[in-house]
């Protein structure tokens, strides 16, 4: 096996990267794009991009982290391109969705109930993830994207605005709606079930 020494780290022959990291990158891409074809394309692009920029690999992070970083950027670029096709009606200031949860004086129509929730336990439960995914799936496209980028990918709000091509106010409205609706959906389908 020929090894390349880059930034003081021994990294295996690029062809072996695919064996070593291919499945991991694929799972990550599949979860974010929900398309096997897209996920495969992105994994391939990621490996090629990594090969091209191998001299830029500083060695500060592990190879795995570095590759995931490249993949994340590919995914974000993909989202950005698709966001340009967003329905303009998505980006209105009306608060109708959130209004459904509050009465005229601004009180909760239905008070949030008590949750018996242990996040670290829930993380282990398949059934919970199914419910979580379904609930996120019920959000509007922009709300789901805003929520995912902010909460799952942990991307800063100003960068999300660039990716989705929306103003900070629009982002804030989308995040708020996403959170109110997601909370309700989880309450009805898991915590109160």
């Amino acid at each position, binding site marked *: 096996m020929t090894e390349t020494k880059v930034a003081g780290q021994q990294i295996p022959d690029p062809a072996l990267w695919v064996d070593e990291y*291919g499945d991991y990158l694929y799972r990550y891409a599949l979860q974010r794009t929900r398309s096997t074809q897209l996920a*495969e394309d992105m994994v391939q692009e990621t490996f*090629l991009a990594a090969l*091209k920029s191998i001299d830029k690999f500083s060695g500060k992070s592990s190879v795995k982290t570095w590759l995931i970083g490249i993949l994340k950027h590919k995914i974000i670029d993909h989202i950005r391109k698709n966001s340009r096709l967003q329905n303009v009606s998505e980006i209105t200031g009306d608060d109708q969705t959130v209004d459904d949860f509050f009465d005229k004086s601004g009180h909760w129509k239905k008070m949030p109930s008590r949750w018996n929730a242990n996040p670290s336990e829930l993380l282990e439960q398949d059934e919970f993830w199914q419910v979580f995914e379904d609930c996120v799936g019920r959000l509007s496209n922009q709300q789901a994207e805003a929520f995912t980028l902010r909460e799952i990918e942990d991307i800063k709000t100003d960068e999300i605005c660039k990716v989705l091509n929306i103003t900070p106010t629009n982002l804030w409205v989308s995040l708020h709606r996403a959170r109110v609706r997601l909370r309700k959906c989880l309450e009805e389908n898991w915590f109160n079930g």
Partner: protein
Amino acid sequence: MKLMISCKEAAEMMSEAQDQSLPFMRRMALKFHLSMCYGCRRYKKQLQIIRDLARGYLTGIERTKPPEARELPPETREKIKSALKNHHNH
């Protein structure tokens, strides 16, 4: 800036506070409301739970998909390997 806010306004502020610090007066108004409203106190806790869950989401998915759905298909694997080899040789 009024000190008495509604639950609807409080929910807006709590969402905002998830991403940036609230200015002093708004923070005070929210604290005051929370001291009196158990529903909104629960909402605040639940927002954090959702955040914790979302952060663990990708790891959760790692564990729950069946093996077949988690692997790069063999043909794709080979295709990528040769693409890399071709690039490497140029």
